[in-house]
């Protein structure tokens, strides 16, 4: 399988949007949307913030640190929520993982 669907998200994951999934601000409707085959989805504000951090470089652990600092919130709670959210996205096929260089 070329792009590894349905990844399992952990704090070590470095997720990113697959190439067929685009996060875009819809100027006409003034909302963020995820564009995917045959679908347009409207992520909520927090999902948008987390998705912007999903660059295939940052680990989930780093995202959690960043969000915990920004919102002065308990790290454990943030971690649980972020992993659950990203897993939900991954299960729907809107998130993949940066692949390890194996050469």
């Amino acid at each position, binding site marked *: 399988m070329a792009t590894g669907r349905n990844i399992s998200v952990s704090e070590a994951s470095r997720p990113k949007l697959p190439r067929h999934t685009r996060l875009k601000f819809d100027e006409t409707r003034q909302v963020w949307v995820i*564009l995917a085959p*045959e679908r347009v*989805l409207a992520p909520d504000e927090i*999902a948008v913030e987390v998705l912007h951090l999903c660059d295939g470089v940052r680990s989930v652990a780093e995202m959690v640190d960043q969000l915990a600092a920004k919102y002065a919130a308990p790290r454990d709670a943030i971690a649980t929520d972020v992993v659950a959210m990203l897993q939900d996205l991954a299960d729907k096929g809107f998130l993949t993982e940066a692949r390890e260089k194996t050469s």
Partner: protein
Amino acid sequence: MSPTLTDASPVVADPKIDHKDSLAALEGTRSTADTFGIPLAVLAEVTHRCPLQCPYCSNPVELDRAGSELTTEEWKKVLTELAEIGVLQIHFSGGEPTARKDLVELVQQATDVGLYSNLITSAVLLTREKLAALADAGLCHVQISFQGNEPVVADRVAGFKGHAKKLEVARWTRELELPLTVNAVMHRQNLHQLPDIIQMAVDLDADRLEVANVQYYGWALKNRAALMPTLEQIEETSRIVEEAQVRLKGILAIDYVVPDYYALRPKKCMGGWGRQFFNISPAGKILPCHAAESITGLEFESVRSNHSIAWIWQNSEAFNRYRGTGWMPEPCRSCEFKEVDFGGCRCQAFALTGDAANTDPACTLSPHHERIFKVAAEEAAGNHNRFIYRNFAGGTLEPSDDGA
């Protein structure tokens, strides 16, 4: 911070027409039938030319000739305008869209103006280089039509030896890391292959499979006697699809479109006329659905007119004629489902009753339902298997086994 994703509207699970599709629509904020936002997705039928001759083709029987097609510059201007007015996704379809030599340029333009692009193709004209060029131009998703799971049935239905090439292109699609949807249009003469088609989609590493029963207008209506499945076949099909949807969860998403002849209620065709979808014909006409030109007496405006696309969508007579519920006669007018299915399909109502404003005869409340269902059931049980192939000459009857 729990619900992270809401489908922008309920993702529309409307019946899909042939390999063309309906699309999820961002319409959650819209509450009345009086306001119509610009559709999220538009179908661009860039040409009617196609090497295949499928007898259920969703193109109109009167095909647009090559000479009337919009030019490269005209299509690029259309794509720019679509993006400006809020369209998010563009489906390049046909005919066979890759029959146009400028498709890479059109996909690049879609990418440059921010449109998410989808290619709906028979695949038989593609080379690996061409597909790679399309991917480099920003193509986001590929849908390949299959007429069966093996060449004997598939090539006969298509009227073209293309099955092997389709398999090859599907593999290239995945090698180029493009997501793949397999489109399978089902009818009496290939429904027995459905389990193998599902397995084929899995083996091809497709993300999605669309199993769409033929919808009967235009070419398919000409071929109804050769295509109509029996009720038993449809029930078996539904069982197979439901079993596969459970078994393949997380591996292959399967969308299923039932044939409305055997339904009790009509489909919410196109999500309702002029509510969330339009397509653009090869010659540039803006249509409420790709079969709309089959309804005589409606004038469709073109992108070549002095009007903007947004104006045509909002104000043109053809779009407003069957919008909402105000136009409905009985039994639709007093029906509690009128905002659910909007009276079904206008093209089917026109094709089967002669008046597009009539209730779609797929509905049991239509006075025509019994008669049409009976004819269809007789055709399904009959022995007429020869196709009329789709072509620019108005159709060609398949040779019989004895060469007649």
